[in-house]
């Protein structure tokens, strides 16, 4: 039992922090309630998917700098397709598109043997270009049901739909894999590639799989952008650095092998609530930027210090 707590101490700490922040929000703005939660959950959608995708590739020992660009491609593809055809086939095509992009990222990493960070840095430009080729200027139109699916809280009463959708989509992609041998392979590859190879893990396919999963999660991210805005924008949003920050805040170790998707997702909500609080307090926006940076560095510093102390005992 104490083992379980020790191994999940980080996530537990994040949950506590999240609870405290929710209380603080309520104190600052007594009217904060269901609609506030809904808007936080909605705002978190693209960040959550970008972060989940990033977390998977960080666990496998890589990093994907092209998440925001892939999301832009999927957002414009969704908006363009949904204007022309039924929503469901369009949605499936977009998911397939995400899969293909992720697969290509992974395959290029494995085949060229160029480090992940370099390949995905290059692919960041490639996918950004592709988004612009699909849609030169913002446009298209997302299906109505897609927009509605993340509004309100009718799926599970009391819980924002956007949150339900996030949990379902991430769970559908990740849970079947996480506890399977494939999931173990992902952790093993991130932990020690050579040992994994010698334990019989097919390193190349495992990496490609992880990047493909990241691609699919980015497709969800792109769809959520289309659902939020109702259109497709070809310019990548600020999701790259935010997702790296959330992944690290969420307790996933850069370098791979350790962490889960839960921590990073909670970290996403923490970061969103902090922004809400800063807005409610009418902070000077320039100071807000400083505070966000300080929080990011500060939390990681505290966490690292806590872990170093834990390791010494």
């Amino acid at each position, binding site marked *: 039992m104490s083992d379980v707590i020790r191994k999940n101490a980080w996530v537990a700490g994040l949950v506590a922090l999240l609870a405290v922040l929710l209380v603080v929000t309520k104190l600052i*703005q007594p*009217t*904060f309630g269901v*609609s*506030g939660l809904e*808007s936080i959950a*909605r*705002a978190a*959608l*693209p960040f959550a998917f970008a972060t989940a995708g990033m977390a998977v590739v960080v666990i496998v020992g890589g990093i994907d700098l092209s998440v925001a660009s892939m999301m832009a491609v999927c957002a414009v593809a969704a908006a363009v397709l949904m204007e022309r055809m039924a929503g469901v086939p369009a949605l499936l095509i977009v998911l397939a598109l995400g899969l293909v992009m992720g697969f290509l990222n992974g395959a290029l990493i494995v085949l060229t043997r160029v480090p992940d960070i370099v390949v995905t840095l290059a692919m960041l430009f490639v996918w950004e270009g592709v*988004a*612009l080729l699909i*849609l*030169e*200027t*913002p446009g298209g139109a997302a299906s109505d049901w897609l*927009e509605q699916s993340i*509004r309100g809280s009718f799926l599970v009463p009391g819980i924002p739909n956007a949150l339900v959708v996030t949990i379902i989509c991430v769970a559908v992609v990740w849970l079947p894999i996480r506890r399977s041998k494939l999931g173990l392979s992902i952790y093993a590859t991130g932990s020690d590639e050579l040992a994994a190879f010698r334990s019989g893990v097919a390193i190349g396919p495992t990496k490609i799989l992880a990047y493909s999963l990241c691609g699919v999660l980015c497709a969800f991210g792109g769809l*959520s*952008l289309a659902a*939020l*805005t*109702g*259109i497709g*924008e*070809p*310019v*990548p*949003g*600020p999701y790259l650095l935010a997702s790296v920050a959330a992944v690290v805040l969420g307790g996933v170790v850069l370098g791979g092998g350790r962490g889960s998707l839960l921590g990073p997702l909670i970290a996403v909500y923490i970061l*969103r609530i902090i*922004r*809400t609080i800063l*807005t*409610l307090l*009418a*902070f*000077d*926006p*320039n100071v*807000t*930027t400083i505070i966000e940076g300080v929080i990011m560095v500060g939390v990681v510093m505290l966490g690292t210090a806590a872990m170093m102390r834990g390791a010494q005992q």
Partner: protein
Amino acid sequence: ADAHKSYTIGISNTVQGNGWREQMICAMRAQALVEGDVGNIIVAHRNTDSAGQLEDLNNLIEAGVDAIVLNPSNPDALNSALEAAMAQDIVVVAVDAGVTAEGAYILSNNQEEYAYLGARWLFEQVGGSGDIVYMRGIAGVSADTDRDNGFKRALAEFPDINVVHEVFTGWQQDQGKQQMFDFLATGIPFDGVWTSGIDNVIVDAFVESGAPLVPIVGADNAGFVQYLTEVNGLVGAAVTNPGSVGGAGIALAVDILNGEAPANTTVLVDPVLWENGTDAGRATIMAAQNPNLDPEWPVSVTVPGWTDYTMEQIIACEGPGGS
């Protein structure tokens, strides 16, 4: 207006670190300060996309503002939040660019006209025929698209004008300058340059490389306007695109809150062109220029008929409630 009213106004903007937008924010603060009935403003001002602006708008709604003045990142993308705001009787004013949400007020610089005006002047300047370099902003961004429409409209009127280079500067000084150096290096001659606001570095590129100057169209940025009066041999025109339109947006929002809504929900601030080739134009430029101003700031710091703050107030960049 009732002097005891104390409105809270929310402001949302999605580009940070660009002189034009900084001026817009300062104009908003200054105007809010001089409007007697504004007690507080909440500014959400950062670099983000439409989804991020939706988040900011929702946070502003949560904060219980009476009006939202925003520079929309896209005309269509923000409707859900804007409609939610209006459903709660929050006044919505979009400045600089329009939004399509029903019932929202728009006080906008006419971007299409901005491009059209400058392009037409340039095409006439080169005698109705010749080769033009077309330096745009950021691909895929609404303002760039609007301006492109205006540029194309002018182009259609001048069939003998030919665009030899078209490039996106990303609204970055360094990129624009480098690109101009590259164009000059090819040795392919051209007769005029239209820029989307990255302007004085383009003049620098000509001067530094020793190439003969051609007519250049820019915006009313402090740096470029100064060049129009100082650089020998430069024939150019600045098209006004006041960032202070933000201040006008605040004034409009307060009017509406006080029950003085205009009949029409859309108010376009039409740009003016100042050329340094005519005496009248020169006089306007001389009067407008201000060498102490941040060189990226547009020199038209007020919108006559709308804004009431002083030069000192906009430079102080202080709003009510300490923000």
